[in-house]
């Protein structure tokens, strides 16, 4: 019988439209406007820093990762997100080093895509924060021409940044923490404040997140749980002690938006179960409030997410979904 040779595959023989690279590149696409906003506010410095961190990530993935891993888009996400958490005046070599660390020690050492415990971008950022605390907390003043560099972006590799190059300002959270002054809400929402590159574009981030949630590329429960927890806790605390900031300030200042929408929802490092997602978000929200209000640092989103990342294996284990035909819904 001269039949053509037929394929022999296991069922199911049809496949849904989603693919891992498609998810990853969609996230990258929604990050482009956020990067755009950063450039709009901070000028060419933003582009330099983000390119450096992204290049660091892509290069590490390309050199040490499995073949073709760059094409799945996950390293690009890490690079962009890392860049968005950095201050605009950071020397490019530091941003690149952060990218190398993020992919190398945050991802590849675990076996690459999907196997890491901590969010690589945040791990890279935490590494930079611990390694170069001063540079990572130098916030440039927003005045000056758009095209001017916001700091010594071009410092030679491994060399200190020139402190004269930066006209320092302060972030709303820093002002609140160390000087007790509030910042206008309008400026917070629109993003015309000092801070990290991605801290300032709340609206753009929310829009991107909403799109991803609609496509089911992120679990809406996590940001909702974080926002709700932060809002409720800080409103309550503000009520008891009016010297502490209110809910809206807490929501729109610092890296909460970027962290809650893009970092906490990283599929790999967040719980897979719906109940787990609620617990995870609640934990992050509570830790953010704790660290911001009573910790030694003005911002706590990064550490909160990293700490909850460490708890994810535990949460996943504790929140197994109810098996069909068990529990009170089953007829005994």
């Amino acid at each position: 019988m001269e039949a053509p040779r037929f394929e022999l595959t296991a069922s199911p023989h049809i496949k849904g439209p989603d693919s891992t690279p498609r998810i990853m590149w969609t996230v990258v696409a929604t990050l482009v406007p956020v990067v755009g906003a950063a450039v709009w506010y901070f000028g060419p410095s933003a582009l330099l820093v983000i390119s450096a961190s992204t290049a660091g990530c892509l290069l590490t993935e390309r050199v040490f990762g499995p073949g073709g891993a760059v094409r799945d888009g996950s390293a690009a996400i890490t690079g962009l997100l890392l860049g968005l958490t950095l201050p605009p005046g950071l020397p490019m070599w530091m941003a690149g080093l952060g990218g190398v660390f993020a992919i190398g020690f945050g991802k590849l050492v675990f076996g690459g895509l999907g196997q890491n415990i901590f969010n690589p971008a945040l791990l890279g950022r935490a590494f930079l924060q611990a390694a170069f605390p001063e540079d990572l907390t130098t916030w440039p003043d927003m005045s000056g021409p758009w095209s001017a560099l916001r700091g010594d972006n071009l410092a030679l590799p491994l060399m200190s940044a020139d402190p004269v190059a930066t006209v320092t300002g302060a972030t709303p959270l820093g002002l609140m923490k160390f000087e007790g002054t509030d910042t206008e809400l309008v400026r917070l929402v629109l993003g015309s404040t000092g801070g990290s590159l991605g801290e300032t574009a709340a609206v753009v981030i929310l829009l991107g997140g909403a799109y991803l949630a609609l496509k089911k590329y992120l679990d809406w429960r996590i940001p909702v749980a974080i926002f709700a927890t932060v809002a409720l806790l800080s409103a309550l605390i503000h009520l008891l002690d009016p010297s502490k900031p209110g809910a809206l300030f807490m929501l729109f200042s610092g890296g909460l938006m970027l962290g809650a929408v893009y970092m906490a929802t990283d599929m790999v490092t967040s719980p897979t179960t719906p109940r787990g997602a609620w617990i995870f978000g609640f934990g992050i929200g509570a830790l953010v409030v704790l660290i911001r209000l009573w910790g030694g640092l003005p911002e706590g989103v990064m550490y909160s997410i990293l700490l909850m990342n460490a708890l994810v294996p535990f949460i996943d284990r504790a929140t197994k979904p109810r098996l069909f035909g068990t529990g009170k819904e089953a007829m005994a």
Partner: protein
Amino acid sequence: MAELLWILVSAMLVNNFTLVLFLGLCPFMGVSGRVATALRMGLANIFVLTITSMAASFLNAFVLPYAPYLRLISFIVVIASLVQIVEMAIKKLSPTLFRELGIFLPLITTNCAILGLAIFQTNRGYDFVQGLFFALGGGLGLTLALVLMASIRETTELADVPAMARGMGLVLILAGSLSLAFMGFAGLFSS
């Protein structure tokens, strides 16, 4: 009260015994493969730490003012014998508990967290109650680190870890990352 709470939180999170002070690393590396075992090890540690703290307070108050050079020797002797006695008592009173914790107790005697607690407590001049809170915080911190590490390690068991990182290399990187995350607690409640 606020100070006691601070001692507790500090020993547990800010200056976590394992991740920041490097105390009790042997169990942290050795007994963190399974969550159930790690939890038992942690509980046994809390237990021994509390006893040690009480013993150290007693020694500091009544014995050591007269012979400070005997400090180290008397600490280690008292801790070792106390653990021995407790072990025997548990064996007698609650065989179940002994089965759960028993094998870990002798291991703990030569665990630096225990002696470290006694020494830190002495150096910082904690009184009896402060010492107890310090011991409890330290024990909880140790248990937290152990259980976190164990649950992570159980997960990475299913990961495609490259050959060069299998074993302790990965565990140390994980410990470093955890330690990095715990830096977020720096300065908590200090102001």
